[in-house]
Each structure stands twice: as C-alpha cells, then as structure tokens.
C-alpha cells in the first residue's frame, strides 16, 4: 500500500473520531449544565463564522459586495435564495473589478 493510501486511511479515522467523539464524551453526563448547553447552542454560529471571517482579510470589492448582498437577502429569503444572490453578485462584480 502506498503512503498516500495510509494518509487517506489515517485521515479518515481521525475525521470519524472527531465526528463521533463529541457525542461519546458528552453522553457520559446525565444532566447538562445550563452553561454547557449555552456553549453547545453557540457552536454552529461560532464555527461557521471562522470559515468566513478570515476571508475578509483578502476580500476585494466584489467579495464584499457578495457578502453584503448575501447578508441582506438572508433577512428575508431562504438559504438557496441568499446563496444564489451572493454568487450572482460575485460573478457579476468580478467581470468588472477582477
């Protein structure tokens, strides 16, 4: 077996451990403390923000326009509407500002 294969296999095992691990640890506790619950409730917004925020460091006008339009559309529309609106603005803006 090649090195690549072993990297893929080990990466897959490591990834599965992260996906099942949180539950295995948390399920050992019978009751969940309000602060822990508050922390869990904060997880999705906290994590997803970190996948967006650093992009702002090298975002140009086209990227900013796309993100702003996405945020505005999100106040009314669903996920698909805001994604398509943001993507359309991005592609359009890049034809002009690169």
């Amino acid at each position, binding site marked *: 077996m*090649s*090195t*690549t294969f*072993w*990297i*893929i296999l*080990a*990466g897959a095992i*490591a*990834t*599965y*451990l*992260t*996906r*099942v*691990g*949180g*539950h*295995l640890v*948390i*399920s050992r506790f019978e009751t*969940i403390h*309000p602060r*822990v*619950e*508050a*922390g*869990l*409730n*904060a*997880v*999705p*917004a*906290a*994590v*997803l*923000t*970190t*996948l*967006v*925020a*650093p*992009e*702002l*460091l090298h975002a140009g006008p*086209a990227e900013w326009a*796309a*993100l702003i339009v*996405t*945020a505005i559309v*999100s106040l009314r529309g669903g*996920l*698909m509407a*805001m*994604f398509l609106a*943001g993507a359309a603005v*991005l*592609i359009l803006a*890049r034809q002009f500002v*690169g």
Partner: protein
Amino acid sequence: MSAEAISESGARSDFWDGVRLSMPVVVASAPFAVLFGALAVDNGFSVLEAFLMSAMIFGGASQMVGIELFGQHVAPWLVVLSIFAVNFRHVLYSAGIGRRIAHWPVLQQALGYFILTDPQYAIAEARAESGQPVGFVWYLGLGLPVYVFWVAESALGAIFGKMIPDTHALGIDFLLPIYFLGLVMGFRRRPLWLPVVAASAAASIVAYRTVGSPWHVSIGAIAGVLLAVILPPHHSGVGKRS
C-alpha cells in the same frame, strides 16, 4: 390503507423532505468537489486516491488542506494531524447533534456521525430547534445526495481536472464563504448570536494572522463557545427552562 403503508409513505416523504433540503448543499459543494479532484491529481494523487479520499473522509476543507500539504511533501503524520485539526470542529457538532439522535439504533447513529458535515449539522440542528423530530430517514435523505455527488464529482474533477475554465471569473474560490455566511445568518435568532459571532470572527482573524491556518478554525470557534459559557446563563436563554 394499512398502518404499515401509511408509515412507509411517511418515511418516504421524510426522505424526500431531506433530499429537497440537500439540494442547495449539493449545488454549493459541486464546484469544490470538482476543484478538489483536479487539485488532488495536480498534487500527485491518482484518480483512485482522490476518489478514496472523498469517499472516506468526506470533509471538503480538510481534504483541500490535506492535498495541499501532501503536494508540499510535508511529513505524512503532519498531513494527518492537519486533517484532524481542520475537522476538529466536528467534535462540537457531534456533541450538539448527539442530543437529537441518541434514540436511534447504534448502527444508524454510527452512519449518522459518518456523514456529519457542516451543512448536515446546521440543517439538522435547525430542524430540531423548530420542534420537528430528527429521524434517521430524513437525516439520510439530507446527507446521502451530498455524499454521492461529492464523491462522484471529486472523481470527475480528477479525471477532467484540466478542463475547469477561469475559476476566478466564475467565483468558484469564494462560493464557500458565501454559503457559510448564509448558514451563520440562519442562526441569528439564537441568544447571544451577535457576541458569539463577533468573538469568533475576531479570534479567528487574529489566529489566522498569528498561529496560521488551519488552527484559526478551532481557536475562533472555541473563543465564541467560551464566551457563551462564561456569560451569565440568563443572557443565554437556557436557564429559564430548567
């Protein structure tokens, strides 16, 4: 109609409910799957290896980081560690979604955790929050199309890698942040949403500048979660219930 037939048609509509919700995810992740396949081959993977990586890891950002480091001839253990670091956020998803799917049979849970991606978590959590049950059939309807398309498109990308036109003009490199922003906005009615987002944004940017990628993901996430834990419970809206 017998009770069995009713429950079967109920399960079928649950499945298609999930499939319908998976479509934006399928569309949004398609460019990344193709891009991953193309980049993987470019970084020394075979088509089979690109296919295997998508089928076994099923985590876009971590796969991108993995092939990038592999292409730079970084030590194998470091490639694996980086994949682990990028995917570490799933520990938090796992802890969150575990509350919702703990009643499933063990094998179904084991499969459920295998397909626990960012959008899978976000959409399942949103459903649970709206008071609807998170059933296995619905969850599978949501995750299966994403998985099948991801793996197939990765292989296609690897085969036709050099056929992607001007990726910048098509905005392909920036579709993921737009999509993730949409998901962040979807959670805006949660208690503490703004302070959590602000803390995570600030911490991830600082970490990106100092420690570097991919650790900014875990560091930024931990900052936001810690803030929610530290603030008095009456702000976070969970104390009232207990």
